[in-house]
């Protein structure tokens, strides 16, 4: 064995190198204040290791980036831990960078002869921030997509070459496959290579000049190994444990809904860039270049000059003062940005909505599988989440859904058309035919039909049907039962899935059910199964009332002869006027009929 090592040493000289690496003297002994550089090196190593393994499962393209990260996070064993470590170590690194920088500045370790050390450190800082920025886009979720889009759009501010620069970074005029391939090559190739080269230089310069120690020395001189190494290792352990606590708490890292260019998301960068984001708000249009490029550039340039000032006592004080002001300022801006968001109800609502979407899309991906077009289509075609949004945008200025706009908010405009929760169901029709309800805002109260024939008829003919049962005569009870049968028969036309069982139980024979409708007073005014010529009746056709087709035709054009004809109140022809696409109407109809994928249904 010894011979083998001797041979190896003879050929490589490894003993001398390890000796030099380990037995570096530390005047004044090992100290906790020297740990920051080592924790950063450790964090970078963690990122390289976890990044490499993520790479084995990650696929950079607009149809597969989110999907592969979803697969890592939710389907691969231990994937969420791996992704979580990469995510949270990136966050920890930002903090460690600031601490390292503070220690170097306060202790004066940046001064001559360590200028090169300091400069390589500053470049490393920017490379790491570059990795965070490029990494943020890689999952191709709403959060990363919109935040990064804002960042690259700001590049357009660079004088003369801004547009070209932006096009090069984005890989085209708009976000897509090449944005991801380029960002990923930067993230996993170019920037890490730069980091390796600069860390090499950084550590070489550090060893060349020896450690800069903080005076006074309170202890005996020590050695890097094992005194400082042990402290460093313990510090790394503390960093790792902190990271693991966050990984556990957040079950890895958050993945918001897949990027959707048609659905904006309130763009916010990750927390460590928030101060820049907030800083920009101080510059009015046309002058953002000051806040986005000139001032941050000037600050960076000044930091590069710091070692020259540091040789001079007052200069050193100024440097420290400058960095403290910078950090306090950045801290204040961060707080200001967070505070503004906290008090912004629209932003909070958007967050809640985005959270719902991110849960829902995972449910859909698991239950229905992800189609080759990508997971974004799962959400776009999902009635449960899209229905309410379409309703809020297009219908809620007049209608309500369970008293709200579909999303749970109070619309600005007063209600002037029926509440559509459960439209076509037995409960809905029963309330509609109740004299106490039909004239309220929940039905025809604020419509042109308020004093129409239907309301009059209900008030005249059905007033005894909805009395308290204990006050009804036997005849009235019979009438009520008869009315119920007609209501149920009409409601069955809707073929609502949630009523399928009672429909089938109550009406085993379809013809018997139809006869109930034919024989009812409804057919005095409403058409049913071509009983009348088209246009001969005023009320909407009851054939397939509340069914998919009926609702689709109504939304496409409520003024068609089968529905309200010339009597149509204000409702626009969403389909014929191309205010909504056919698939959008389909989604709305499915939502109103409560037809959507539900796990275990």
């Amino acid at each position, binding site marked *: 064995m010894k011979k083998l090592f001797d041979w190896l040493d003879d050929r490589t000289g490894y003993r001398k190198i390890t000796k030099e690496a380990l037995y570096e003297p530390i005047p004044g002994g090992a100290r906790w204040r020297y740990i920051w550089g080592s924790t950063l090196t450790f964090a970078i190593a963690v990122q390289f290791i976890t990044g490499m*393994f993520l790479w084995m499962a990650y696929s950079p393209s607009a149809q597969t980036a989110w999907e592969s990260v979803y697969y890592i996070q939710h389907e691969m064993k231990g994937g969420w831990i791996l992704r979580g470590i990469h995510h949270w170590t990136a966050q920890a690194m930002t903090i460690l960078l600031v601490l390292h920088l503070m220690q170097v500045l306060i202790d004066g370790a940046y001064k001559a002869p360590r200028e090169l050390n300091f400069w390589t450190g500053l470049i490393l800082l920017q490379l790491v921030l570059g990795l965070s920025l490029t990494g943020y886009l890689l999952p191709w979720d709403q959060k990363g997509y919109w935040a990064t889009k804002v960042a690259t759009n700001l590049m357009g501010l660079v004088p003369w070459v801004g547009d070209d620069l932006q096009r090069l970074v984005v890989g085209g005029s708009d976000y897509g496959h090449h944005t991801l391939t380029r960002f990923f090559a930067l993230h996993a190739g170019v920037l890490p290579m730069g980091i390796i080269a600069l860390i090499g230089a950084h550590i070489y310069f550090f060893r060349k000049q020896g450690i800069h120690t903080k005076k006074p020395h309170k202890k*005996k001189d020590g050695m890097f190994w094992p005194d400082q190494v042990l402290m460093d290792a313990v510090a790394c352990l503390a960093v790792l444990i902190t990271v693991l606590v966050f990984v556990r708490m957040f079950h890895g890292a958050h993945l918001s809904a897949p990027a959707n260019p048609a659905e904006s998301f309130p763009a916010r960068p990750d927390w460590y860039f928030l101060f820049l984001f907030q800083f920009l708000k101080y510059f009015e249009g046309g002058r953002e270049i000051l806040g986005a490029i000139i001032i941050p550039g000037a600050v960076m340039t000044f930091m590069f000059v710091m070692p020259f000032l540091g040789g001079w006592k007052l200069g050193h004080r100024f440097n420290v003062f400058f960095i403290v002001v910078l950090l306090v300022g950045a801290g204040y801006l961060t707080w200001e940005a967070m505070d503004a968001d906290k008090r912004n109800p629209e932003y909070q609502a958007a967050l809640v909505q985005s959270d719902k979407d991110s849960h829902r899309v995972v449910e859909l991906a698991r239950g229905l599988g992800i189609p080759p077009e990508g997971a974004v289509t799962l959400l776009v075609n999902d009635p449960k989440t899209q229905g309410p949004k379409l309703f809020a945008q297009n219908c809620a200025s007049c209608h309500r859904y369970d008293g709200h706009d579909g999303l749970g908010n109070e619309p600005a405009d007063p209600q002037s058309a029926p509440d559509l929760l459960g439209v076509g169901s037995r409960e809905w029709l029963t309330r509609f035919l109740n004299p106490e309800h039909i004239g309220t805002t929940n039905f025809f109260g604020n419509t042109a039909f308020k004093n129409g024939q239907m309301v009059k008829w209900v008030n005249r003919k059905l007033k005894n049907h909805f009395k308290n049962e204990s006050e009804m005569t036997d005849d009235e009870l019979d009438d009520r039962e008869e009315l119920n049968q007609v209501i149920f028969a009409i409601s069955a036309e809707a073929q609502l899935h949630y009523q399928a069982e009672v429909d089938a139980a109550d009406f085993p024979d379809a013809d018997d059910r139809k006869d109930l409708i034919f024989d009812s007073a409804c057919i005095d005014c409403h058409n049913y199964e071509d009983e009348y010529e088209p246009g001969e009746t005023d009320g909407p056709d009851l054939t397939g009332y509340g069914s998919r087709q009926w609702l689709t035709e109504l939304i496409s054009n409520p003024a068609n002869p089968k529905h309200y004809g010339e009597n149509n109140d204000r409702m626009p022809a969403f389909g014929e006027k191309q205010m909504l696409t056919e698939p959008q109407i389909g989604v709305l109809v499915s939502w109103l009929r409560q037809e959507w994928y539900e796990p275990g249904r």
Partner: protein
Amino acid sequence: MTEKEPPEPTSGESPDDPQRRDFIKQAASVCVGGAVGAVPIAAGVAVYLDPLDKEATGSQRVKVTSLDGLPDDGRPRKFSIYADKKDAWTTFPKSPVGAVYIMRTGEKALKVLNVVCPHAGCFVDYIARDDEFFCPCHDSSFKKDGNIKSAHSPSPRPLDELKYEIDESGAVWVEFMNFLAGQKEKVPV
């Protein structure tokens, strides 16, 4: 530590004498350092090993052809199989997953063979001249019933036979699946 000691000159000592170093400190450094390094590596390796954990694809019942589409003389015909395929995160509806040879062996009896050679996975060809299946990769030859023909064939087993069903309309349904190559037994993948 408050007492002030004059800094010892480091050069006078022999720093390269490891015996003098505190052994416990060294051991602790190695353990802690090893542990913090092991965590990210372990997380990565665990995820890398994930494929070992996933279940076999199993079989899919696929409608391939109709009885009328098969020659009466018992010649094999090759059919591509289109089925729903799940590839990691993507679900592909009706995409190509493989191919089979189907031949008549009786009025309502068929033989269905997976075209994949059990040796190393090439597609075998039906050679009408010799009335055999021949693998162009390493020259395995199979009789029409799928059994190995020439003793020189490297294939460890006959061609993989698949189950089928003929419904009332005469449509042929195949229980399509693949098996591990190179094994003596048929192990589904």
